[in-house]
């Protein structure tokens, strides 16, 4: 017997999965560059969120057309992958369609796959048309120019080719067509090849089979380099996403300690810290670079699939301001990748590259345009919170750099002096009663 194809297959599988594992490790390391944050609360709510939002796609269908098509692709993707198991067994052992032993069940299974493959092919084609022919606005914002736009299309091409190969592979499998069970779609493709000699058909079948599995392995490894990671990260991201009311911003603990000290008349400000207690003064307040953000915010950045629903609902963006919540996420991810590569190149240590997220990627103008209305957070189908990053960076601008717009500085001075953002006397606070 000739074992070369089996060995080749095994090597291919190991290489494909191995490289992917290596990148997953890198991904986890990068995410862990973020600050620690306690997410051990509300476990049942978190599980529910993951089940509803990621598994159940509850937020995708808020926009019915895109949502419906996405559900088809998503269900297709998951279910057709059952077929992968058979392909792997066949590839490793040299068997032919090992599951076809249970002929009736197999017919139903493959029939379902074929129908789904056709539907996925159709949906993906419509997605492509929406992006490139109808030119839906959110796919053409300035941050989408270049790689992000191409990335979106490459993913669609991948899916089209994979689905087509699956159907061709079935159509040219003469034995499978003779079984005439489960070939609900491929029986209509089979006649296209009927004029060809049997050996040629067999070569086409083998080629499609190999290209299909090779394509899947390439696609798997493409994920890390693309926006498409959401197919995996949507699950942890919806689990670790915000469970508190959207309006609630976190209270900086480091500030709480400072303020308590300031307000406590019994504290001796010059006292040395108690023996053994670490100096807990944080390096900085707020965030100017990705390492200052929490790891959940970094996970958010990797999860973003650049659909642009956030930006299309953002009041600042809708009125022509520079702020785009999607760009905030894309910038965070790009900077994080840059930091990761820096660490790789410098033997595990980050060497200052003179750049940071604030200024080099995200400008103060973008940050100050936010109304904190939570439209972006509400719109995100996978529980990403761009607002929390905007607030962290505003905190850095204000508390570390005193770089708020002048009018805001006036407003804050007013609050400090008279307890209101306007310059009115605190003693006049009840005057409305008699006016």
């Amino acid at each position, binding site marked *: 017997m000739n074992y070369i194809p089996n060995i080749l297959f095994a090597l291919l599988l190991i290489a494909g999965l191995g490289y992917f594992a290596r990148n997953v490790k890198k991904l986890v390391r990068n995410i862990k560059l973020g600050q620690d944050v306690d997410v051990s609360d509300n476990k049942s709510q978190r599980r529910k969120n993951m089940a509803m939002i990621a598994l159940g796609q509850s937020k995708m269908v808020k926009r019915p057309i895109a949502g419906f098509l996405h559900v088809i692709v998503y269900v297709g993707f998951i279910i057709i992958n059952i077929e992968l198991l058979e392909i792997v067994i066949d590839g490793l052992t040299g068997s032919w369609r090992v599951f076809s032993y249970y002929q009736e069940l197999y017919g139903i299974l493959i029939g379902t796959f074929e129908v789904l493959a056709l539907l996925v092919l159709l949906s993906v084609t419509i997605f492509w048309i929406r992006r490139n022919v109808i030119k839906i606005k959110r796919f053409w914002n300035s941050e989408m120019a270049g790689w992000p736009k191409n990335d979106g299309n490459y993913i669609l091409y991948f899916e089209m080719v994979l689905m087509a190969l699956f159907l061709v592979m079935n159509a040219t499998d003469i034995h499978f067509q003779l079984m005439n069970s489960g070939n609900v779609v491929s029986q209509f493709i089979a006649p296209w090849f009927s004029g060809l000699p049997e050996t040629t058909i067999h070569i086409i079948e083998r080629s499609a089979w190999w290209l299909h599995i090779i394509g899947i392995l390439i696609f798997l490894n493409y994920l890390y380099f693309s926006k498409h990671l959401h197919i995996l990260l949507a699950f942890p991201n919806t689990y670790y996403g915000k469970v508190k009311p959207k309006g609630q911003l976190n*209270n900086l603990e480091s500030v709480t300690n400072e303020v308590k000290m300031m307000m406590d008349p019994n504290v001796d400000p010059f006292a040395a810290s108690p023996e053994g207690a670490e100096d807990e003064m944080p390096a900085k307040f707020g965030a100017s670079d990705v390492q200052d953000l929490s790891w959940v915010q970094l996970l958010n950045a990797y999860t973003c699939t650049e659909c642009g629903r956030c930006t299309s609902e953002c009041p600042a963006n809708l009125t022509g301001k520079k702020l785009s919540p999607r760009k905030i996420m894309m910038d965070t991810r790009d900077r994080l990748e840059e930091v990761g590569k820096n660490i790789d190149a410098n033997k595990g240590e980050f060497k200052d590259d003179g750049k940071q997220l604030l200024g080099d990627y995200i400008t103060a103008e973008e940050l100050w345009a936010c109304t904190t209305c939570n439209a972006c957070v509400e719109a995100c189908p996978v529980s990403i919170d761009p607002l929390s990053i905007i607030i962290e960076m505003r905190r850095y601008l204000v508390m570390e750099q005193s770089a708020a717009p002048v009018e*805001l500085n006036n407003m804050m001075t007013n609050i400090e002096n008279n307890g209101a953002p306007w310059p009115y006397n605190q003693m006049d606070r009840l005057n409305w009663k008699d006016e």
Partner: protein
Amino acid sequence: MSEQLKVPTMAQCMAEGRQPEILFWVGAAGSYDDRAKKITRAFVKILNKANVDFAVLGTEESSTGDVAKRAGNEFLFQMQAMTNIEVLNAYEVKRIVTACPHSYNTLKNEYPELGGNYQVQHHTQFINELISSGKLNIGKVSELSGKRITFHDPCYLGRANDVYEAPRELLKTLGVELVEMKRSRNSALCCGAGGAQMFKEPEKGDKDINVLRTEDALETKPNIIATGCPYCNTMMTDGVKAKDKEDSIQVLDIAELIANSQE
């Protein structure tokens, strides 16, 4: 307005040795802004009418710090919060009602961690309670009948805290024709003045947010744009002026609609 309102302060109540049931948190806008003061007075009228045992902090009230926090000044926010919490806890306040969604959000969500635990309600929720418990009667109001009203969801009431129905229920009680904007409830568009925008010029763009939102409202051909937030009120009022519609469209707080119905 010359009508005398009964507005006891917490200090007065304490001097009289009694504990009011409700603290009405007026907020900085409600205290100083000329337009918002009318909303404050309208709400107090309702409180008086329903004989609610309430008090205000008066000159002891200070900014919740919401706007400072959203501008990025966490220090100032927490200073404000802790000072307010000291005052509120000293008066043993249990229930707070406010007509400002920003105060509502901050008091309800951001104060507990800092030691301020209160039951906080937006005035539309509280007025609903007054009605359902029979303390306040609202019938259909003849001068409002047939009027088209659209409700602008304040971000800090709606998306921020998932309160969408309380204001709408009140509008229904008034017997008006409630028409929804194409963007409403959790997809409502912001009026443009949250997140400290009220106190600064907008960044460069091609339109003001409040004008865009007013256009949403105008599409419903309303007689009245109702809202439940002093900032939204200012922004929508300005938007209506920018569209030269101030003669035909009023921007009113729900408390004002209810208070007017009581006359």
